[in-house]
């Protein structure tokens, strides 16, 4: 119908092609105003930053040279963290397999998927540090609390992604296995798992990686591992020992990353 209307000028055509979206503009403007307001509220200013720089210089100065004299304490803590991470990963990943399977909506009836999904949602709802505090309060100080906290975190991550991977499989392959007269578990073993195993290994190595990092943290709240040592060093202003611990943690995480990459490659 607009074909026979009179030719319009360039501005008119432009306005027709790119109609201004006042609603989106208002939302962005409001967001910008809030950021400025919040920064004012929290004293987020340049002057405050400059003061911070001075303190930072002193802090860094006291960290060097790192002090490895108490290496036994260091090694003990690191080893405990490593053990927490490995045990939590093994148990968490093992539990994630059935839970993830039960949460897959394309294989399971609603009365199975809903509780499984609720469990996963519960496991995901808190940061590991909060879960660690809860377990320390519930079962007492020590690595067991850290292990439980990380197991829960592992289920939240691996089971959820595993369920999503299962929901994306090819049902044609499953149908063919079903047509052979296979039982449900037979279908799972030969029709479902082969399709998702490589991805499951991928999630698991990411989780091992993440557990390694988190295992150095649960100690801060009393969950065992190097975190406790690190926290104590902070409290006593032993910044050179803090530096030594941080360097070791970085080394451990990098080694873990290398192993995880190698594992993923092996199982492609």
């Amino acid at each position, binding site marked *: 119908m607009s074909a026979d209307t009179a030719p319009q000028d360039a501005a008119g055509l432009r306005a027709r092609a790119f109609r201004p979206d006042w609603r989106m503009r208002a939302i962005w403007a409001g967001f910008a105003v809030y950021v400025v307001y919040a920064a004012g509220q929290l004293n987020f200013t340049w002057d405050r930053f400059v003061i911070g720089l001075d303190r930072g210089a002193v802090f860094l100065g006291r960290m060097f040279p790192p002090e490895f004299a108490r290496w036994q304490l260091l090694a003990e803590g690191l080893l405990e963290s490593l053990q927490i991470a490995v045990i939590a990963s093994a148990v968490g990943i093992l539990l994630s397999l059935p839970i993830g399977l039960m949460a897959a909506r394309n294989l399971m009836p609603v009365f199975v998927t809903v509780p499984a999904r609720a469990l996963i949602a519960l496991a995901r709802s808190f940061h590991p540090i909060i879960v660690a505090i809860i377990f320390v309060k519930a079962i007492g100080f020590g690595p067991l609390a850290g292990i439980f906290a990380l197991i829960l975190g592992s289920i939240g991550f691996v089971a959820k992604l595993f369920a999503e991977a299962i929901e994306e499989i*090819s049902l*044609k*392959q499953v*149908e*063919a*296995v*079903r*047509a*052979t*007269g*296979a*039982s449900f*578990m*037979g*279908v799972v*073993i*030969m*029709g479902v798992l*082969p*399709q998702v*195993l*490589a991805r499951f290994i991928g999630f698991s190595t990411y989780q091992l990686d993440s557990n390694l990092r988190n295992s150095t943290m649960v100690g801060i709240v009393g969950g065992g591992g190097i975190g406790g040592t690190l926290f104590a060093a902070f409290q006593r202003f032993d910044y050179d020992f803090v530096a030594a611990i941080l360097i070791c943690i970085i080394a451990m995480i990098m080694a873990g990353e290398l192993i995880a990459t190698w594992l993923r490659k092996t199982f492609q």
Partner: protein
Amino acid sequence: MSDSLRDAKAKSDDARKPDRGGNPPVRPAANGQDAVLSLRGLNKEYERGKPVLTDISLDFPARGVVAIIGPSGTGKSTLIRCINRLVEPTSGEVLLGGRDLTKLRGARLRAARREIGMVFQEYNLVERLSVIENLLCGRLGYVPLWRVWTRRYPDADIARAFELLDRVGLGEFATRRADALSGGQRQRVGIARAVMQSPKLLLADEPTSSLDPRTSVEIMTLMRDIAAERDIPVIINIHDVALAKRFATRIVGMSEGRVVYDGPPEDLADSHLQQIYGRGDAGEWIG
């Protein structure tokens, strides 16, 4: 519209009587005794009031290749899946060896299913498993779970898998992953997997639709021969009328969820094809 068909059926019912001597029986007995598979009044609606299959009654003899032809969307795939209950029929009976499969559940349904091999349009191999593992999938209805999990299949099964793999000409591909094969090779594996089940009946759902014409002929030949060697009857969904006429001993024509032709391939006339596929020059399809 199916009056002529009913007449034809009535006539054939009369003519059915003895005569099993000479030619392969184009007309099976309708009493379910000589037939390996009988469908009785089969109906299927995915949505209420929208029937996909309407009152299908067919008997399939214990040998030979039956081709089900018809345009896509006419319920051929649904029909074939109602036989092994990958799809639940809404009503009617599926009698395999005289037993009604629609009444079975759980372990007894699976035991019946393992006696029905199935070949798929897109092969449906488990892509990340090796060829030999895919063949052994055909034994899942027989082998206990722990043996499957640990891959400790019985020696006899493994020997048979290699034998069958040789038969379909893929002997050296045993440990290759299924997704490394070409379409024709995959379908050979699909056929071997179905035969691994030691089935009493072989179903094939458009087994050549994803293949080029030459490979299609090879696959049809293989399926016909391997079934004949083992005395297994075959039911094939196929929309390629020329292939159907070339390989089938009997043709069932379907249109809009009903059987509109049932007889030997040589009697399939252009008028039938027009009834099955709608208006147009029937010569196009039989090329």
